[in-house]
């Protein structure tokens, strides 16, 4: 008798978990506000399971190790969209099912990492550029990536602890594409970055904001979303766009192959592309929205915010990180390790 009740209990638990009307979202931590998820459940009756990762690599490895793991929505960055699409890990999107795509800024669509947006829809985006504390340096004296090499920044520079981000600085300073696979150019970027090491105070892996706010570093290369929060917290900080071309990053919604709730995934992407929802996400997280209709509905101080919405002429000169292939990736990693042990 005891066993019988146990079995019934287990069956009940099993039923609770196998209910059909769910969507499994695998996303960066704190990248979709709770209010948005609640609203989605309220509007559609679909229960949301929200799991998080801390890096694109983590997302990739997890899907690679278990392709039938059961996620319906993932949010990889541009270069991982390209890679995962190439390796057949993403579902080809039926854009006819996504009428709200009309709201997305055309300048952020049809990029080299995903021509025709066959596999991905922009979720949030931003730039990577220089933040400088005007108590110590005049922001007007910093106009190109090469200016970071000046001796006055000795042991003051904050960089992200991200291989591609750091190499992008070296490559952009030399005037090369940040997606180069030419071994000679990569080597030159490494040699150039070696000369930058005396200026590097730290590679930040866990949030650059407090470090710039408390002036533990007085100049840095950071993401625009972080820069927005930094300039609010410390009035002396200024975000500067270099004339030598900016770096744009785009995080995208994609559907992995074998997604168990395909119809719900389309519903979710469409839901996110509603101007009202896109506005909620962008305003709460402080990252730029690709949803141009949403942006037009925001207060003027945000629409005119140069950090979040750089002018079109600057945006048009942006480069977006793409995928390099395994051999080139290994070459970057080799020079990245050399760079770190030279410090």
């Amino acid at each position, binding site marked *: 008798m005891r066993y019988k009740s146990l079995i019934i209990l287990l069956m009940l638990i099993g039923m609770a978990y196998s209910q059909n009307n769910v969507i499994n979202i695998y996303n960066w931590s704190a990248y979709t506000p709770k209010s948005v998820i609640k609203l989605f459940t309220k509007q559609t009756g679909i229960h949301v399971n929200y799991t998080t990762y801390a890096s694109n*690599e983590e997302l990739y490895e997890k899907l*690679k190790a278990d392709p039938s793991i059961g996620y319906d929505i993932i949010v990889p960055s541009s270069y991982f969209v390209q890679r995962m699409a190439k390796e057949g890990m993403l579902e080809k999107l039926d854009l006819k099912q996504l009428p709200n795509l009309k709201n997305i800024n055309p300048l952020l669509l049809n990029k080299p990492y995903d021509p025709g947006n066959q596999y991905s829809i922009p979720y949030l985006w931003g730039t990577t550029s220089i933040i400088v504390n005007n108590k110590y340096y005049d922001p007007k004296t910093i106009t190109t990536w090469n200016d970071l090499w000046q001796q006055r920044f000795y042991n003051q520079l904050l960089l992200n602890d991200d291989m591609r981000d750091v190499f992008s600085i070296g490559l952009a300073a030399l005037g090369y594409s940040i997606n180069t696979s030419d071994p000679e150019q990569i080597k030159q970027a490494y040699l150039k970055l070696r000369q930058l090491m005396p200026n590097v105070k730290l590679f930040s892996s866990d949030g650059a904001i407090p470090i710039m706010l408390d002036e533990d570093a007085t100049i840095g290369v950071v993401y625009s979303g972080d820069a927005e929060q930094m300039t609010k917290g410390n009035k002396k900080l200024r975000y500067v766009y270099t004339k030598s071309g900016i770096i744009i990053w785009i995080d995208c919604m994609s559907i992995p192959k074998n997604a168990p709730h395909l119809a719900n995934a389309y519903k979710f992407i469409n839901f996110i592309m509603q101007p009202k929802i896109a506005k909620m996400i962008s305003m709460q997280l402080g990252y730029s929205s690709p949803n141009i209709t949403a942006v037009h509905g925001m207060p003027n101080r945000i629409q005119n915010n140069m950090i979040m919405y750089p002018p079109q002429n600057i945006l048009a000169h942006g480069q977006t990180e793409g995928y390099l292939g395994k051999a080139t*990736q290994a070459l970057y990693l080799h020079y990245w390790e050399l760079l770190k042990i030279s410090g």
Partner: protein
Amino acid sequence: MMSNRLFKIIAINIIFIWLAVLALLPFIMVVVASFLQQGDENLFNWHLTVINYTQLINPIFLHIFWRSLVVSVITTILCLALGYPFAYILAQLSEKLRLACLFLIIIPFWTSSLIRSYAIITILKTQGLLNQLLLTLHLIHQPLHILYTQYASQVGLVYSLLPFMVLPLYATLEKFDWRLVDAARDLGANRLRAFWQIVVPISAPGIIAGVMLVLLPAMTLFYIPEILGGAKSILLGNLIKNQFLEGQNWPLGSSISIVLTFFMALLIGVYWKFNKNKKQVLI
């Protein structure tokens, strides 16, 4: 009686299965992975190879291995220098005080060491507690830049690992028969000589156990150099992480972990051998 036996069998089997599934099996998988080729589309190609080990004979890996070793040896020496006097005094305190002090050593373990590393940031940073204190006392006029240097990560490592040195030392010194020191003094040895020739040799097992417990983790606690040292250098832990995540080269990452495991096993082997000889000498 019967149920007692059944309980024993079940308990032993659960532990056995637990270890087999969660410790032995993953380890075997890592060993196997270290002999496979890196795949293009998949994580592995099923071709046996030793290339992941021959690749390790290169200047970068040797440099990183050497640097990790230096960092952990320095950490161990500092822990011993701080921990030995601590345990020595602790062992001679009254029982009540001793318990209170031991309690104070154990309390920090209730908080994750990652969080305690962040706490060190608030102490060491430019506008942190240490600098404010020194500035108020007029001992310095410019804030010290300690955070994001090698010194900061050394401070973090010693802080995190010190209890692992103190506890085994305390365990051996607590049992120490202090009359031996009196006897040595009676026979004409001065304090220092009594310490070097009586206390140190008898507490050697504690010293060795402490050294092992500090030396090995210090090589792989990668997050402390990352958080406090500004990630400006690579230690073995970071190297393994990089190969798995950035390089997507699981076979190479596996071979590095196997080499590290082997190195640790070697040290433990030396320790066992030493312990065995020691017992024979005493008998």
